């Protein structure tokens, strides 16, 4: 009698064995060469780069700054916000961009704490998204304010008018949390950047030399400097995680603290956090694809394995989002409250019904249908498309939560469909500004943390176990 009841595998041995060089950590390269590759990618600017930058700058100038000027000169009447929808796309943008900003912290801090080695080459690209995303969120708040020149009233300064910010209000918590997050994430972006700025300083000439010399703050890489830097980075990695959770939880409380149908939900905090991660991770996939396909030498640093890791995280987060969304949907539906029922019917069968179905398609169907497959996860352009669709879905989710939900309240005589006006131009301007900042940053700061990549390569070895060579990691720092 045969010992085997059925064949164990159908593929060939050659297919099974992966070339270790496919992994960045095992495809070692001298540090000097990696530095040159990084700097080369920063210094090379083609006409295509300047054309795209110019177009983005023109869009920002007209759609954002001119439209904003027009809004200020004519008042919020030129926007679509009106009774009962006072929170329109401006607030959708705030929530959306804060969500995008969560990716940097998640990838850089959580994956750093968990020692996920695959994070190394793309932490900075994600951290930059955090800072630039928060800049867009801040701009959107100012746009929403209308009389933006009075924004200093939010700052607690004793004054003759007797105005004082109410620290008991969720909007004030929001102000505190977003500012804390913006300041801390900017510092967290800068810390691991210092050694790379020192590397750039050592090679640069002209105005770049002066710039990097100032920014590198005199870093050489002595034992004491590394110790202080690593200690500070560790503190940030652990401390910024709860701050990240608090920010979007507090954003959700802006809605959940109001006793209105569609908003008053105890699950809103974690639901918002997971939604933020959903859009943030997806945005990282888009940005990594763009960096990889438009910048020189990036194919060495950003490989299919990194997209695979990102794809797995996106799938996981998509499942978690679906779980929270179902929770948030089921309980009011089961409760049978009259106004909740009307609102649910309005969202699913009202004049904008297609937005709800498109949201579910983009946030659940697309990632689940594609990201389960390892081969597909490793295709950068496919992951970027999935990322784009997820962001469409997440933007729609925020649109449904804010203006659509505000349309239906307990006073039917006020119901009115929200039709955005100048907000559309400002939204285009917001997106263009994000990409413009990214384009400029890509030529000024090393988007790949080269020292972290080298550190990873130093600590990875291939161990021979039986017939196979297995990757092993040891801590050298």
């Amino acid at each position: 009698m045969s010992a085997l009841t059925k064949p164990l595998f159908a593929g060939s041995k050659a297919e099974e064995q992966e070339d270790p060089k496919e992994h960045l950590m095992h495809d070692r390269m001298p540090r000097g060469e990696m530095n040159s590759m990084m700097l080369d990618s920063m210094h090379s600017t083609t006409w295509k780069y300047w054309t795209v930058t110019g177009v983005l700058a023109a869009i920002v100038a007209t759609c954002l700054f001119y439209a904003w000027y027009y809004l200020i000169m004519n008042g919020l009447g030129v926007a679509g916000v009106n009774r009962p929808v006072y929170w329109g796309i401006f607030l959708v943008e705030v929530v959306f961009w804060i969500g995008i900003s969560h990716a940097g912290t998640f990838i850089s801090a959580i994956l750093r704490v968990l020692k996920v080695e695959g994070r190394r080459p793309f932490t900075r690209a994600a951290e930059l998204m955090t800072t630039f995303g928060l800049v867009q969120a801040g701009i959107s708040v100012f746009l929403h304010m209308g009389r933006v020149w009075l924004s200093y009233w939010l700052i607690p300064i004793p004054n003759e008018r007797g105005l004082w910010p109410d620290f008991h209000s969720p909007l004030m918590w929001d102000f505190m949390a977003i500012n804390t997050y913006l300041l801390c994430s900017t510092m967290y972006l800068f810390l691991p950047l210092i050694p790379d700025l020192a590397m750039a300083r050592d090679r640069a000439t002209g105005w770049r030399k002066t710039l990097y010399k100032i920014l590198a703050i005199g870093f050489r890489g002595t034992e004491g400097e590394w110790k202080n830097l690593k200690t500070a980075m560790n503190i940030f990695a652990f401390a910024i995680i709860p701050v990240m959770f608090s920010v979007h939880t507090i954003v959700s409380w802006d809605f959940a603290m109001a006793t209105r149908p569609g908003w008053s939900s105890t699950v809103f905090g974690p639901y918002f956090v997971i939604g933020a991660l959903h859009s943030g991770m997806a945005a990282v996939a888009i940005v990594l694809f763009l960096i990889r396909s438009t910048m020189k030498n990036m194919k060495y640093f950003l490989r299919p394995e990194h997209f695979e890791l990102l794809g797995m995280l996106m799938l996981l987060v998509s499942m978690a989002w679906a779980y929270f969304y179902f929770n948030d949907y089921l309980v009011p539906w089961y409760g049978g409250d009259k106004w909740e029922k009307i609102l649910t019917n309005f969202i699913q069968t009202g004049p904008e019904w297609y937005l709800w179905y498109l949201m579910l398609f983009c946030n659940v169907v697309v990632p689940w249908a594609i990201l389960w497959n390892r081969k597909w996860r490793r295709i950068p352009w496919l992951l970027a498309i999935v990322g784009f669709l997820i962001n469409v879905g997440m933007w729609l989710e925020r649109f449904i939560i804010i203006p659509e939900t505000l349309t239906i309240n307990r006073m039917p005589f006020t119901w009115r469909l929200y039709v955005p006006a100048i907000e559309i131009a400002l939204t285009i301007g917001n997106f263009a500004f994000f990409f413009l900042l990214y384009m400029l940053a890509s030529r000024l700061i090393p988007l790949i943390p080269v020292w972290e990549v080298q550190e990873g390569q130093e600590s990875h070895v291939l161990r021979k176990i039986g017939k196979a060579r297995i990757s092993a990691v040891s801590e050298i720092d």
Partner: protein
Amino acid sequence: MSDSTMLLALFEDIEPAANGIERLHEMGIADDQMNVISGVPIKDTILGRPSALSHVSRIALTGAILGFLLGAFLIWGTPYLFPLHVGGQPLYPVPQFLIIVFEMTMLGLMGFAFLGMFVDSGFPSYTPKEYVREISDGKIAVLFRCPSGEERKIVDALKKLGAESVNPAEARQL
């Protein structure tokens, strides 16, 4: 210290650098007379060096305490000056206290960790320093002070262990 010379030995890899440091110890150069400069962080035990002292954690903790106090002042202290009665809520609520104090504590913790890194490392500093560009290309430099007259012996010993170069350290503009 006119009776000593500052030398900078450059190594290609961790292994020869660790051996070089061990040899320097054997030749009577104390740990406080040397420093390792590298393009990546290397655990002190790998190089056989004592752990570098850092005050960043303590400074960060001080920041956290200050942040806590600032948060407590904002949520519980300011209502004395500007009492705002909203929605039947107490003037000194606990849940809101936790939120504001949490944000301020974390801001203090991280803000001071950032500043602490600067203060403890002496940043920013734009004065000339002993440094060579090859360090950011992955080389490991051992900067040490050796008694005058013993340079030749030490240079030979380090070169035998794989040092690429051992030269008098020059402070230069970074």
